[in-house]
């Protein structure tokens, strides 16, 4: 019966620890990304982005802590009932309640907006272009001597590669920063005019980029966050169901932690299962729902497909765990 106190405290401790770690790293990364805007503007942007970052790191912290708790239970099995109840209930409560509390920290106008994102402060052109240095913009390189509010002067566009003229000079230009693109209009008129529309990639963005190995994982976590936010904005019961489905599915992957006598293999399989479930959730939400929606008369009916599938798969894994996988293994047998 020690588990009734030990497990929740352990879980809470790990959640808080991971939450602080993830949040700290997210803040540093975000601060670094907006660093080129100048000290004041960067601080404002970070301050405005804090509630968004808090909400974003919560699911990752809870699910990572859930996995650690399950590994802990597998290593030191106690009461089977509490080992089922505490992780499931703890993760559900922390995520569902924590999410709602953290959402309250967001300003009211952004709570009702479509999708929350960190850094909702209007970015300036300095986030994407720095004067006096070569700025990389997709396949082009741009050198700008001075950057004003909307104007830039003079501009040198580096075409490079096999272009006849590698360097193009423009005495002045205009820069427009939008949500989806940064438009740089150089030259005055006629032949000498050149317009460049680039993705808004912050100057220091590449330094804090997750790299190719983690790109897919981070994009899946982003999708999970977007999906949670979507259902949260949709209705509270739907949000609770989504949280429950995710918690059950990720708890279900804990079945692999007791699969064999080789604990390292068990952990490896469990991690793969966890990753697989996250990938499945994204695949269903991003690909399958979209494709099926094209053929259905009522695509809205599919909007809970990822959560339902995850709930069913998770439920099955939990069932297999309960029925077939021994909770405790005797040493050396």
């Amino acid at each position: 019966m020690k588990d009734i106190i030990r497990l929740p405290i352990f879980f809470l401790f790990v959640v808080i620890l991971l939450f602080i770690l993830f949040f700290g790293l997210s803040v540093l990364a975000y601060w670094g990304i907006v660093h080129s805007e100048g000290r004041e503007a960067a601080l404002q942007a970070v301050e405005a982005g804090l509630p968004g970052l808090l909400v974003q790191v919560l699911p990752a912290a809870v699910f990572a802590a859930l996995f650690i708790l399950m590994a802990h239970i597998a290593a030191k099995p106690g009461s089977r009932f509490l080992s089922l109840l505490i992780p499931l209930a703890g993760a559900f409560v922390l995520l569902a309640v924590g999410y709602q509390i953290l959402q309250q920290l967001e300003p009211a106008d952004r709570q009702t907006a479509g999708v929350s994102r960190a850094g909702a402060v209007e970015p300036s052109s300095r986030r994407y272009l720095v004067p006096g240095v070569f700025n990389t913009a997709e396949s082009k390189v741009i050198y700008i001597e001075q950057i004003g509010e909307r104007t830039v002067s003079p501009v040198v566009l580096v075409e490079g590669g096999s272009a006849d003229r590698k360097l193009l000079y423009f005495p002045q230009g205009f820069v427009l920063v939008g949500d989806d693109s940064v438009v740089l209009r150089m030259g005055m008129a006629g032949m000498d005019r050149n317009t460049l529309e680039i993705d808004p990639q912050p100057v220091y963005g590449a330094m804090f980029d997750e790299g190719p190995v983690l790109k897919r994982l981070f994009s899946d976590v982003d999708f999970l966050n977007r999906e949670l936010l979507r259902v949260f904005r949709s209705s509270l019961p739907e949000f609770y169901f989504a949280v429950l489905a995710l918690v059950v599915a990720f708890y279900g992957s804990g079945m692999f932690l007791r699969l064999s006598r080789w604990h390292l293999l068990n952990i490896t399989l469990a991690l793969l299962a966890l990753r697989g479930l996250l990938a499945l959730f994204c695949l269903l939400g991003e690909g399958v729902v979209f494709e099926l929606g094209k053929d259905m008369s009522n695509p809205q009916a599919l909007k809970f497909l990822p959560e339902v599938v995850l709930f069913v798969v998770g439920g099955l894994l939990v069932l297999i765990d309960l029925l077939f996988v021994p909770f405790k293994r005797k040493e050396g047998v």
Partner: protein
Amino acid sequence: MRRQIEQNPFTILFLFYLLAFGVFFFYSIFTFPGHLATFLWPFVWTNSFILFMRYCIPVTVAAVAVAYSLLPAADTVLVRSGRQPFAKLVSSHLTTFIVLAVVYTALILGLHPLAVRNMERFDSLTEEAEKFLDKAKKAMVKQDSNTALLNYQRYLEIDEGNRKIMGVVSDLQKKMIADRPEPPQAAQQDRESMRIRDLAEGKEAYEFLEMAEDYFEQEDYFSAHYYANLAYEIDSGREDARRLAARAQDKIASKDLSKLEEEEKRLYERKKEGYKHFSSGDYIKAYKVFLELKEEYPRDAYVNSYLEKSVDRLSEKHFYLDEAEQIDTLPGATELLFVNYRDEDEREIVYIGKLAGTEAGIFCKDIEVLRFNDRELLYHYHVPYGRLSEGAMFLHGVERIAQGAAPREAAPRETEPRYLSGASGLRREPDPNMLVLVPTLEELPTLKGGSAASASAEGIGFLTLWKARGQIGSYGYLEPTISAEILRRLLMPFSFLILCLLSVAVGWRFQARFSARPHWILLVFMPLFPLVAIPLTALYLHAQQILLNFAALRLRFSISLVVFLVLQGLLLLITMIILAGQRAD
């Protein structure tokens, strides 16, 4: 043997390494991009090495964890006299891990950048070779055999073993030999006989005057006039020389010249012209004149001597195109871009398509320079080749004509800056054919920002990067990105060691508890361990990089280094505590 493998974790580690390298090797064979076939095996080896280095940490982590999780606890821990604590057992392995970390450091900091540069070389040389082939084919269509042959030969300098192109070149050469007209030998002999028989080199004025008098007596008034003039130029006080020259001039004027004498007169006039150019410091014109004369009068000592002198002087501020063009087929740093910060009020942006060294010097190709101030563009020019020498780039290239080459109709080629705009601005420069460079030769390869694709610093050596960091901001680059790259590279060996030790603890903590020997079927699961280790190690590295990159942005580099060392020390300490805390049973 099997027992040995199970008891020695390093056997499993090296098996993992071998298997990983094998996988990367086969992967590289099947993913060979459209490079020249001659680069297939170099590419496969290099790419395998790069992939191996990229995944070395996760493979090591997986292998060490597997090895320690499979160590038969009873056999290993109970050594002869009794139980040994786990920490004591592992301490004997620590030395090997440290040695491995040192080897990894040498490979990641030393060999890895070289391998990346090698890959860039395959890319750029394939591109160059394709250009030569394309030019050669177009020249063939236009029936320009010379150009076609030149470009095929250059292609073969890159793709040496291409039998098909070798066959084409051989056929083309045969055809060109068959089509070549016979040289007019009689005329050639006449010209050669007309050479001035004495070398004017290193003589005093009185000696020239004596020679001139001899020629005058022999009624060779051209030579007499020539040497008398030379004597007068050396010593302007020698009125007798001036008078002799005038007498010879009168004789020439009063004489009905034969065809041969006309030719001799022309030779004399040309020599005089060449000498005048040489004396006035216009070595290119002097070179051209003497080069033409050399083709006509190959045995003329005076021509040979002044041609040699012109060549020597020329190489001080100019270069030969044949030497510069060698870099087309050589590997080098490509797409360099920098701000050539020479003036507070003006900016000069320099683009260099390629930089490479040959035996004749360090050359650049495809150079574009743009200079502007707050108000206007001052100049913008392009020059195909340039030679680097002592902080300057010489932009004037001339064609060297090989000795004994067939006479040509076209004038020797020359390359100079071609003004795209603002020519007047360039002419204001003290020497329009010389570009003073602020970056040193060592710094130039680090300025690879000419295109977004080439901007990666992976191919730059660690020491070069370290040295370039202090100045790179003044060349138009963000200094924190270089600091971050340096910290990233330093992070790798530390992470290797820390994660190795951590995976020892993890492997031991999650040991297999088999009553009998593990079943062979477990081998099927082995590839899963690196698959999981890859994102886990990537997360570990990413988290640290966020912290270090932030430090590089906000703090001075030296403080960032301190942060880095403190962080690594802390992580190593935690790892050692975890390791020491493992139970022996």
